[in-house]
């Protein structure tokens, strides 16, 4: 315990010093995202999929599209569910079993960024109103945890949805029937981009690495849509932000988001 704490304190000091110098341990500027690669279509058995590498973080995400029952009060819209998992091969501290509160938060923040941006026009995912709609399941698996899973999972989810080849169903007598040989593009209305920032002392860094993540005073995830508007927020961590910091984070999220968005949009080409 003592030893861990000393190492811990040492790491905090080193990370804080390098952040204060304006150049991070891995050489990045404070508002610089790690190397990002997006490979759509890696799971052909899924309707959509993507492998995303963000620095040392790796996520493989699949999208399954199936007929589903609508919720009672929204029979004119499809359904959307987004999950996340950190299987134990992703990190020595990851554990099998029911998801921790951190994993539940991860899944819900990624879900909210996509849902609240209205990325998918759910009104176009209806087979028969009030009876049968199209359900979109987006499952994120973190294969390697190198920090900032919020953005990595969000990018993988968005790219996987963009890459979707959607089957076509028509209503049969009792149940929806697949129309063989047809497919359509997903009804994309906007492309949300999540940008997670951390505060270390008075400095804000973008896309924290795993080492930095362990030293954050507080973090903030801001998701922006294609219009540059803000569509989801999640503050976390041990401490808070001043209102001025929150305003400056919004600026950063909008500009970084605009740089990342084309990288995700390229996933359309995998359809």
């Amino acid at each position: 315990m003592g030893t861990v704490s000393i190492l811990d304190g040492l790491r905090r000091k080193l990370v804080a010093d390098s952040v204060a110098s304006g150049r991070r341990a891995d050489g990045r500027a404070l508002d610089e995202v790690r190397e990002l690669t997006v490979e759509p279509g890696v799971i052909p058995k899924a309707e959509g999929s993507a492998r995303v590498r963000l620095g040392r973080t790796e996520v493989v995400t699949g999208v399954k599209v199936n007929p589903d029952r609508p919720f009672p009060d929204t029979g004119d819209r499809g359904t959307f569910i987004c999950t996340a998992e950190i299987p134990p091969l992703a990190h020595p501290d990851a554990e099998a079993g029911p998801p921790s509160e951190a994993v539940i938060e991860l899944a819900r923040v990624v879900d909210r960024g996509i849902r609240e941006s209205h990325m998918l026009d759910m009104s176009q995912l209806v087979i028969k109103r009030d009876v049968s709609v199209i359900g979109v399941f987006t499952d994120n698996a973190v294969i390697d945890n190198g920090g900032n899973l919020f953005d990595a999972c969000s990018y993988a989810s968005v790219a996987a949805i963009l890459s979707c080849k959607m089957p076509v169903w028509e209503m049969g007598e009792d149940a929806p029937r697949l129309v063989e040989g047809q497919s359509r593009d997903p009804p994309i209305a906007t492309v949300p981009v999540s940008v997670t920032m951390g505060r270390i002392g008075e400095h804000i860094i973008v896309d924290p690495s795993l080492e930095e993540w362990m030293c954050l005073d507080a973090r903030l995830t801001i998701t922006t849509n294609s219009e540059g508007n803000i569509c989801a927020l999640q503050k976390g961590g041990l401490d808070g932000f001043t209102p001025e910091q929150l305003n400056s984070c919004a600026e950063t999220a909008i500009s970084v988001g605009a740089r990342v968005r084309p990288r995700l949009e390229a996933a359309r080409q995998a359809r």
Partner: protein
Amino acid sequence: MGGRDTDMVLLDANGIRCDGRRIDEPRRIMIKAGVLHNANGSAYIEFGDNKIVAGVFGPRDVHPKHQSNAETGILRVRYHMQPYSVTERKRPAPSRREIEISKVIKEALLPAVMLERFPRTAVDVFVEILQADGGSRCAALDAAAVALADAGIPMRDMVSACAAGKVADTIVLDINNEEDQAGQADMPVAIMPNSGKVTLLQLDGVLTRDEYRRCIETGIAGCKIVYDIQKRALAERHFSGAGQ
């Protein structure tokens, strides 16, 4: 992807909302501290139609032991809804939503609680939602902070929470259930009122860059109204002759 397109008049020509409030006016808020016998501290809040009770235990031993920390105390928070608290009966097992809200409430309280004074122990905050309305996480957080203070846990600041939102293209304070269903954005905010730091911030819905700034300002103004009510509840409990 939510359901936000009804015909209800959410804001009339005089700037009056569907429940009669002005745009910068919160719902009725009533807080009472010290309502439970077994908890070390407790509070009951009515915030609009929210009815919520919070109880605090600790600092106390941690079970299982491996969760404890030799350098500092830990804070554990459970936000839980009673099955009858919502229109459709809720199953008793904690939902993913409740688990996430428990976590954001915990992280909103953490900077205010002087846990470093109680290494190896836990402070437990338990919140039961008896009736839920829009803004239940803010109301739960307000009650939890009062219960912590009621328990005598040393705090470096209060924590006060109130949502702001966007309704009929207007930024308003403390949106209610109807406004949340039909409105455009809901942003729960919590601050430490003395330091001014924001310790909880979430958003559902779309805001421009400028609306975002004004929404945060509006939420902070609401938090300050709540803060006065929290202080009054603690004073009534601990410094008035009429204390229970």
